[in-house]
């Protein structure tokens, strides 16, 4: 086994692959028009804002922002009734499966927040609740991670994906029952898995704590939820596949593959298990949560302001570079560890290469929003989505820097990494889900949100809590890392230096949890108002405007 030769071969292979894709994409996609970006708009719809979460006043103000910056919109034509009917049918077809996934996601969000908050308190209050095994720090922390990673985030994102797909493909959802079945299996797996962790059944790997006998249900459930897309693609009414479909499609294939390979019993061993662990741990973020969230941004952001993505080609470049580079970054979690050095180097290189898709994405969303930043004031959806997109840029660039050996030496093994993880999973993924749910839910239930003020309260509580969380924990982590690197200082100094910052983290976490309670209460209110629970059959859906 010659590592240098292997590395060279992989390098050449990836370069060849990249060029092959660029060549294949050139055909028709790099023209100046980039008509693909208009796929998500009906004829005459560009220049019209869609924002179901806004009150009628907000919606008017939002439309004014778009009118001011887009002269074309003054010559707007009417959208044909036929196109509106197609969209209404598409929304109706996905309503129940999407609602089910959202409802589960909200429940898991509350469970996950509670587990996270208590874990955080225990770090500076270590004698809290120590008489019960399942309430001990190590178990609650694993429960927090798994609830968020397999409950809240995937169900929220899959719900949004299933709700967007019929709109993106202009085809009613096919196989909605498979989604329901998949969601039931997934939830059953999660309940069993969390119960297992609580009583001490744990597979011992981060992100893979749930043992394979139970975790297999995630792979099966994920595949069932993905199948409708495979049915719909051949029957789609659009010629072009919008960039969101790419991200959704790839993610739905990537996740079951990742999970199955990671959980094959008896195959992995020793240090290879550790490299596999981080191949999975990082790819479930990079190849599942990230692409699904980006798919949401690429749909909701243009839709709300009524303006197509500015540089569609840039979005395609972003997709393939993400697919190429992100898959190999995981070993930066093992820098300095007992694994082959070439693997660590490879991961550092690919981590830095991630700057390409991130900058492509950020530049694109900035260019798209240019002239429309006033819309942030009037659209609750856009506020959450935009905040999420900005956090994606920050967390990704921060991640690339953290992979560099010099910076990694300070941040590795510290709370800084935890702060970084929350910047991604919360600042980016969760905020995008919030925004998406605010947009989709009124369409699903055919009812406006009952209390606009709750949306604003939710936003400011989580943003304030999140800011406190990130700032305090990042500072605490950096100080901890500096003490750990200094051999002249006692280890206990590294604990003492973090304690005030850990208390700050708990405060931030409490504010975030409060925000989630607002959100959950609002979802309950809109459900009650819609009569979903009392009247099983609905016939109408609001027109898109």
């Amino acid at each position, binding site marked *: *086994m010659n590592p240098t030769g292997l590395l060279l071969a992989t390098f050449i292979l990836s370069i060849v*692959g990249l060029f092959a894709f660029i060549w294949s994409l050139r055909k028709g996609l790099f023209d100046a028009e980039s008509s693909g970006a208009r796929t998500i708009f009906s004829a005459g719809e560009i220049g019209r804002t869609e924002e179901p979460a806004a009150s009628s006043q907000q919606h008017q103000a939002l439309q004014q922002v778009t009118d001011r910056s887009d002269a074309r919109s003054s010559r707007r034509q009417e959208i044909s009734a036929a196109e509106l009917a197609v969209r209404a049918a598409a929304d109706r077809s996905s309503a129940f499966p999407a609602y089910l996934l959202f409802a589960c996601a909200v429940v898991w969000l509350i469970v996950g927040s509670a587990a996270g908050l208590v874990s955080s308190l225990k770090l500076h209050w*270590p004698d809290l609740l*120590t008489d019960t095994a399942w309430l001990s720090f*190590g178990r609650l922390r694993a429960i927090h991670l798994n609830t968020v990673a397999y409950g809240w985030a995937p169900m929220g994102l899959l719900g949004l994906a299933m709700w967007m797909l019929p709109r993106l493909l202009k085809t009613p959802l096919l196989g909605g029952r498979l989604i329901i079945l998949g969601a039931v299996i997934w939830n059953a797996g999660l309940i069993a898995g969390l119960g297992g962790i609580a009583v001490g059944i744990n597979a011992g790997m981060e992100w893979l704590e749930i043992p394979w006998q139970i975790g297999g249900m995630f792979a099966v459930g994920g595949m069932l939820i993905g199948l409708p897309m495979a049915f719909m693609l051949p029957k789609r009414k659009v010629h072009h*596949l919008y960039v969101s479909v790419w991200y959704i499609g790839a993610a739905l294939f990537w996740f079951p593959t990742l999970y199955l390979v990671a959980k094959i019993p008896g195959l992995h061993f*020793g240090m290879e298990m*550790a490299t596999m662990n981080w191949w999975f741990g990082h790819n479930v973020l990079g190849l599942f949560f990230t692409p699904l969230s980006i798919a949401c941004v690429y749909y909701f952001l243009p839709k709300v302001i009524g303006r197509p993505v500015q540089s569609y080609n840039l979005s395609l470049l972003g997709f393939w570079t993400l697919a190429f580079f992100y898959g190999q970054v995981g070993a930066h979690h093992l820098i300095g560890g007992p694994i*082959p050095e070439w693997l660590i180097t490879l991961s550092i290189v690919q981590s830095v290469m991630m700057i390409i898709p991130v900058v492509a994405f950020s530049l694109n969303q900035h260019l798209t929003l240019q002239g429309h930043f006033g819309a942030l004031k009037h659209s609750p959806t856009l506020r959450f989505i935009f905040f999420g997109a900005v956090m994606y840029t920050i967390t990704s660039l921060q991640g690339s820097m953290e992979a560099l050996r010099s910076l990694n030496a300070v941040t590795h093994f510290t709370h800084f990494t935890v702060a970084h993880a929350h910047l991604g999973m919360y600042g980016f993924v969760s905020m995008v889900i919030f925004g998406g749910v605010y947009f989709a839910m009124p369409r699903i239930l055919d009812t406006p949100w009952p209390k606009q003020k709750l949306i604003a309260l939710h936003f400011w509580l989580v943003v304030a809590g999140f800011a406190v969380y990130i700032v305090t924990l990042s500072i605490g982590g950096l100080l901890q890392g500096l003490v750990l*690197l200094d051999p002249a200082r006692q280890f206990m100094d590294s604990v003492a230096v973090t304690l005030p910052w850990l208390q700050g983290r708990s405060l931030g976490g409490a504010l975030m949890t409060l925000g989630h309670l607002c959100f959950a209460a609002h979802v309950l209110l809109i459900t009650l108002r819609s009569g979903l629970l009392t009247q099983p059959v609905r016939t109408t859906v609001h027109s898109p405007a």
Partner: protein
Amino acid sequence: MENELKLISGAMVTLSLATAAMVVVPFMQLKDVPAPEALAPYTSEQLRGRQVYIANGCIACHTQQPSITGAGRADAQRGWGRASVAADYHYDQPPLLGTMRTGPDLFNIGARQPSADWHLGHLFQPRAYVPGSNMPAYRFMFEIKDPATVGKGERVVTLPPGTVAYDKVVVAKPEALDLVAYLQGMNHTYPVLTLEQAENLTRTAAPAGADGAGKDAPNTEKAGADNAAATKP
């Protein structure tokens, strides 16, 4: 893009590349690495203790990977031992490397702290031994009893004065005893070769040293120094 097949096959090709780099090649490179001679397989008590370690998420705060590079630069001076190598984890399924040092590295905790009494008492109330520690107390692994009700064969924990009420004693449950057996067994102070050193050795000395007798010689001095550092309390 109009072609969904191209999309999905492209996506799967990129994932295969990542899988080859991070799963398949390490598999091939590491599958024949033998266990160090001095590393004993776990006893059944230690294996049960390892399960207790996993079940209670100790990995969330403790690493098991001293290093000489990156974030591990100060490890040897703290007495945490030489840098670990892949072979050290031969009997670990899965390895418990950890990514967080809220608490110290435990790869050589058995060498640093061999006393079972210390470990038991520390698990019951960490702050009685390490002031300022934020390690959770593992009270649920112990029973607080009247001295008269202690059964034969039950392990009474010796505690610093003031840790429990004066008329009570603390008895360790089996899970605590197993966990401590695992912690006491964590001792990787024997000398080893890194993968690179072993490969260089076989490449340069293959014809003469085919019996492998001289394999340990070149690194003994350095390993010995690390060894001494590792056992420093």
